[in-house]
């Protein structure tokens, strides 16, 4: 296999100038084709072996940059579903009731997930104020096919030990298979929740379609 100066410079991790200088100094096994220098891969491998140099001449496929397929908030909500009138009077019962309603989580995993959610609340309340909480497990749920946000409207506000001590009436559950997507959704969601009009809109108990429409408008405004 023949290599050019440029190819070799990539494989050795040095500048093309350096390769040209080494040729001029007589340090590399090179042949000249017209005005261009060419290297034979078998000679190069021998040379590298003799001199203890790591030279990998196989064509490395440049790893495709893993598409940061950042999912849109509205799609996540569509995946997770919107549920209303969840009954419960404290954190744990409310979480249990929501989980029972959420159909996208396989039943076998619900008990485990509930434990994790409760554990998370114990560490630090996910009530971020203005009556909204964003419960989520610490570890990611690898059994999920796609990320989802389930929105649950509570029948009655519950004391959530939130940051502003206000009772919570809307829960945004964030369930993700991968940490990166979780962080992304968290970021996008917090952006939306900063908008006071949106939080006001949430208090009005909207129906799922309207909610998703509103979210779609909001996420367009997000510069991310």
């Amino acid at each position, binding site marked *: 296999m023949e290599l050019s100066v440029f190819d070799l410079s990539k494989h050795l991790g040095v500048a093309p100038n350096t390769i040209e200088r*080494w040729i001029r100094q*007589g340090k590399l096994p090179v042949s000249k084709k017209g005005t261009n220098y060419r290297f034979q891969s078998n000679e190069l491998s021998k040379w590298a072996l003799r001199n203890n140099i790591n030279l990998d001449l196989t064509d490395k496929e440049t790893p495709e940059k893993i598409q940061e397929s950042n999912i849109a908030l509205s799609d996540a909500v569509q995946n997770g579903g919107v549920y209303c009138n969840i009954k419960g009077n404290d954190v744990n019962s409310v979480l249990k009731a929501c989980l029972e309603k959420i159909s996208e989580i396989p039943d076998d995993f619900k008990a485990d997930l509930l434990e994790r959610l409760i554990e998370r609340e114990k560490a630090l309340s996910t009530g971020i104020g203005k009556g909204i909480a964003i419960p989520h497990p610490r570890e990611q749920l690898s059994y999920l096919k796609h990320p989802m946000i389930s929105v649950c409207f509570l029948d009655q506000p519950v004391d959530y030990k939130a940051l502003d001590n206000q009772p919570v009436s809307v829960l945004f559950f964030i369930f993700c298979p991968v940490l990166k997507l979780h962080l992304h959704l968290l970021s996008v969601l917090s952006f939306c929740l900063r908008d006071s009009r949106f939080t006001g809109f949430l208090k009005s108990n909207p129906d799922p379609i309207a909610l998703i429409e509103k979210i779609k408008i909001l996420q367009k405004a997000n510069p991310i």
Partner: protein
Amino acid sequence: MPAIKNWYKTVYQRLFHLDDRLLLIIAGSIAGICSGLAAVVLRLSLESVLEWLHPFRHYGWAFIFPAVGALLSSFYLEKIAREGAGHGVPEVIYSVSRYGGLLRFRSSYSRLISSFLTIGSGGSAGPEAPVVMSGSAIGSSIAKFLSLNDRQRITLVGCGTAGAIASIFNAPIAGLVFSIEVILGEWKFVNIIPIAIAAVAGAQVSQAIIPERVLFFHQPFQVGFPDVLACLCLAVVTAMISVLFTKVLRQTGKIAKKSAFPLWGRAFIGGCTVGIIGMFMPVVLAEGYSFIQSMISGTFSMGLFLAFVAVFAKIFATAMTLGWGGSGGIFAPCLLIGSLTGIVFHKMLFALFPTVGCASEGAYALLGMTGIISGVMQAPLTGIFLIVEITGGYETILPLIVVSSISSTMSHYIEPASFYFKELIERGQFLRPGTDARILSDLNIRELIETEFVTVSENMVFRKFIELLKTSGQNFFPVIEDGSDEYKGMIQISGIRRYALDPGMYDMIFLNQIMDTEVITASLENDLQEVLDMMDINNMDSIPIVENDQFIGMISKTRVLDLYRRELIVQTSVH
């Protein structure tokens, strides 16, 4: 015509690029033969001129000969050959270290002519260094003709050098050893064969034309144990004399440069001085081979006192010749001074211990020669092998080794740089392969620069910059002026942390308010050593390179380490 050219090209390529060793051997032997011829020509012409001038020597005005010779020599070198004056051997080493042995073609003949003028008229210098210079230049020109690469050209330069020394002294091993020890500085297998062959070629050329087998003929010496003891003292003495010689040479050179006389004035004065000394002590004139011969044969006529004075007279005379504008080498003067020292030492030894059976005067002359060569050039192997080959016998080898090693070690201790290298070391140009200095000189800034940097405009709002930060992996952002792309300053992530975490600032500041304009920058003209020093002094891990107010790229220490290692591996590679 093109058909012939193509055929020639294919034959050339097939034959020689298969294995360049064959090519080097052939080219090397040609270089050896040519430099051998040059040496022979110089030697014969010197002999004839000296003979021709000999009858005139007892005239009162004969002291003017060396002056005229030196004058003509420096005039020729400056005006006709237009070669910058210089000793010669350091120039070859400089070119081998920096430029792969590229030497000017005119050096092949110019030094021969100038040293012929200097030495032939009686100047106290040796013909060896000029012949080394010619041989090296011949090797370099052959390499140019064959379009060889640096490594091959250096080998050919070595071949020329070896051929030259081998031819003058009829000593091929000394030629090989000198070439590798002094000129090339590295014992690489690929070099040794062509150089050895060149040395033999040069010696054969000299033998063919001047059929004597050894330069200095001698009777076999009897060397006994007391001699070995005496050698220890002799070694110390020769070391002292070597250091003295080196120092005197350099001092006279410096004085000459500072003096107000024009170039030929200096040469004239130097020559006159030598001439005057020569009137009283003819031993100091020219290269003195005949005197050396008489010393080795034991027929030297001077007594202890005169010989003692002669040592210093010769040192002074050589310094005056070479330092004040004459052209030649120090090899032969070293031999003469060495043999004088040996003779003096022997006479004193005999005077102090008349009953101890020590070897004859001639043996001590030889030992003295080894001592001075090892001391002045700090090339002990060359000293040993040269004397062994000159005398054609191994009987003195034990004392030779003793004298040589002790003398070179001692002089190295006092004067850490040999005569040839001192000048180069002072200029920072002593670059042996595989040394730090050499790597830093070979690596060019251009090869180390990383240029893939996103630049930011000085009028960018901070908020936009924060957004950019989210997706970029850079730690340094060069700030440039809109429109002209002029480099204005640098933003370092570590420096703007406090602003980045304060969202209140995002819409309040433009980048040109928080950029650092005091960052030290380097340019493409700086060499790597300077850039590294800048980074060390200012405690930086990365330095921006700015050329003509344009940002070019950055050099980081981590990249330097990577490439430094690469370079070292390739430079010291087994080929």
